[in-house]
């Protein structure tokens, strides 16, 4: 009786296998927000793979969400690079530097071919993280990006509009980011749409309380 059970356990513990409620063993980097870390599978952003952040519009805290991780990744040794593919506005260097991001590791790409540029950045293996703002992307294209991220061992972040929340996507982690409307808070509410394990409850974050 014990032998098949153990075999089954070994099989279930395989990192590439995940079940709805189990937490897959994946390499992660802390988000910098303890509440979010607790809710995410593996306790942080995945180191390799594609995540999708859906926002109603730019300026709701989509960068604050990522900043502590970005700062940690860019200051790690030896740091790889971080690309920003077609961001909606100019990333403001002094503010990013104030949050601890090493600006000389950031590379901006302005292009009308964001999908192609993002795939190149992820695939090259030169980037720790590749952020992209995509106006539209088919599930097939996102699948390509997911594969590229695994190939280049990079963290791919796609910023998309909340409109696409109902469209299925092959990204390994999808979350919705909405600003908290209550007065005197500067934070957001995170809802995980898709994750490999982890919590289903919405998570409230306060940007100023990054660890």
């Amino acid at each position, binding site marked *: 009786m014990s032998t098949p059970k153990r075999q089954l356990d070994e099989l279930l513990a395989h990192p590439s296998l995940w079940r709805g409620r189990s937490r897959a063993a994946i390499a992660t980097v802390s988000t910098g927000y303890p509440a979010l870390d607790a809710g995410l599978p593996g306790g942080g952003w995945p180191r390799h793979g594609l995540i999708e952040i859906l926002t109603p519009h730019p300026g709701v805290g989509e960068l604050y969400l990522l900043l502590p991780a970005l700062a940690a990744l*860019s200051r790690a040794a030896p740091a790889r690079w971080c690309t920003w593919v077609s961001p909606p*506005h100019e990333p*403001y260097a002094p*503010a990013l530097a104030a949050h601890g991001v090493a*600006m000389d590791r950031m*590379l901006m790409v302005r292009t009308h071919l964001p999908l192609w540029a993002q795939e*190149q950045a992820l695939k090259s293996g*030169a*980037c720790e993280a590749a952020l992209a703002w995509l106006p539209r992307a088919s599930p097939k294209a996102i699948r390509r990006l997911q594969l590229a991220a695994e190939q280049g*061992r990079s963290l791919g972040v796609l910023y998309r509009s909340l409109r696409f929340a109902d469209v299925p996507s092959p990204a390994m982690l999808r979350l919705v980011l909405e600003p908290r409307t209550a007065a005197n808070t500067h934070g957001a509410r995170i809802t995980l749409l898709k994750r490999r394990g982890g919590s289903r409850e919405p998570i409230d974050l306060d940007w100023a309380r990054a660890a």
Partner: protein
Amino acid sequence: MHPRSMRLIIEADRPVERVPSVLRVRPAPPPPTGPGSQAALALEPRELWIAAHVPGLPLAALHVAERSVPLVVVDAEDRNQRVVAADARARAAGVRVGMTLGAALAAVPDIDPQPRHTARELVLMQQLAGIAATFTPLVSLEPPDGLVLEIKPSINLFGGLRELCRRLRDACLAHPVFATGECTPHFTLAPTALAALAAARAGARCFITDPKVLPARLKPLPIGVLRWPEEENARLAAMGVHTLGELMRLPRAGFARRFGPAQLADLDRLLGRRADPKRRIAMRERYRGSLDLDHEIHEHDRLLRALEPLLAELEEFLRARQRGITSLRCRFRHYRAEPTVCILRLAQPESDATRLGSLLRERLATIALPEPVRRCELVSGALTERPVASRALWAPGEHGSAPAGEMPALVEHLRARLGAAAVYGVECVAEHRPERAWRKKGTEGWGRALDEARSLLPAKRTKEERAHPPVPFSRPLWLLHQPEALTVHRGRPHYDGALELLVGPERIESGWWDGGDVQRDYYVARTSTGARLWIYRECTGVRAWFLHGLFG
């Protein structure tokens, strides 16, 4: 010690007694012996120089193939119109180099005098130097008709000294100018550049690797090989000094006094007692290749495949020179339309055909060909030093490694397709005006320097950052390209509804001196949906409200 050199010292010592002490101190460390004596014996064969001398270079440079009359080359600059070169028939008829044209015409009336073409001579010597440069990086021209190359470090690579000399000789003789056999370069080998050159000019057989035998072997050469001024040679001849051996026997101090320190220094260089640094020639060469296509090609993929042999040739060309290129120009010729030009620029020197091919593919994808291509031409930019990098032990990304080459590779790849301006870095500027507190930064030479300096160390905060740590939430993460005017209702700025001002005002007033005058009151505002904005109100004029940034 050799009894003969003993005798030399004794002979040399006597006249030294008579020179004033001022002159005696000048020739420094070696003891005051004759200008050429056994001091060279202590020298190790640290260097080995090959000299190539082209006798009759003015003749060779003229490229006159068939001629019926004896040919002489005359220096047009010279008032006396001296003959600088004469072919075999003219020499057989009695014409000698150095004669005036009048004398030559008197000896042989039907000669064909040609003006000297110094520019072509230089080109020919540079071509020879280019051939020599495939054997060693240290090649130096000795104008007008010689060149020297240091080959000691290349001996093993080319399978021994004799093999190297044979290959160098064969490579030089393969030059079309020497096909007629009228004049051939003369090669010599010696431990010093000047000795090799002197022997080559004299046309002597010289294959010396041992510095000890150098003085003895140089003795029979005429003093003319040093190319000193005519009057010096005449004075020496009047003293009965005709060969280098006789020259070396002269007392050192007296020689310096009579002929000057420059000539003494020449003798020291000849024997290796004095360093003789040579100026390395800078190769200003480019790769040029062209290919006539068998049939016209319209598809990019097939065009790239057709270009492969040219790229392979380019790689071979670059590898032989240990160089890389940072720009490559392709021209595609069509039947009627203007040629299509495609220029590839690289962030760091590259020589790999596959890499160049893949970059060219990206570049070509942005170019539409008006007509099928009939002919391709490839011209490289200037060759640059290509730092030879070790291969990384880990694959990119494995074990958290960041191979130095990866970022430039990605940058080049993106720039090849999207254009140079599409890819940039950003940096902070110490400046109060928000729009000037950051700037774009090009990516040239960027990845390499950074990776070398930083990749193994965590990025450090700059001195300024440490002195004035910026407050994290005082500035927005997004800055708008252009401030966006806000509507105002009942005195309150609106953006998706009325804005609630949270922090402010923060007055920024700066730049009246450089034309970018700014007087603004900045506020952090909150929209009804909870987003935070960075807005400002002009302190002058109509005091309008603008949106300048988002706290993303």
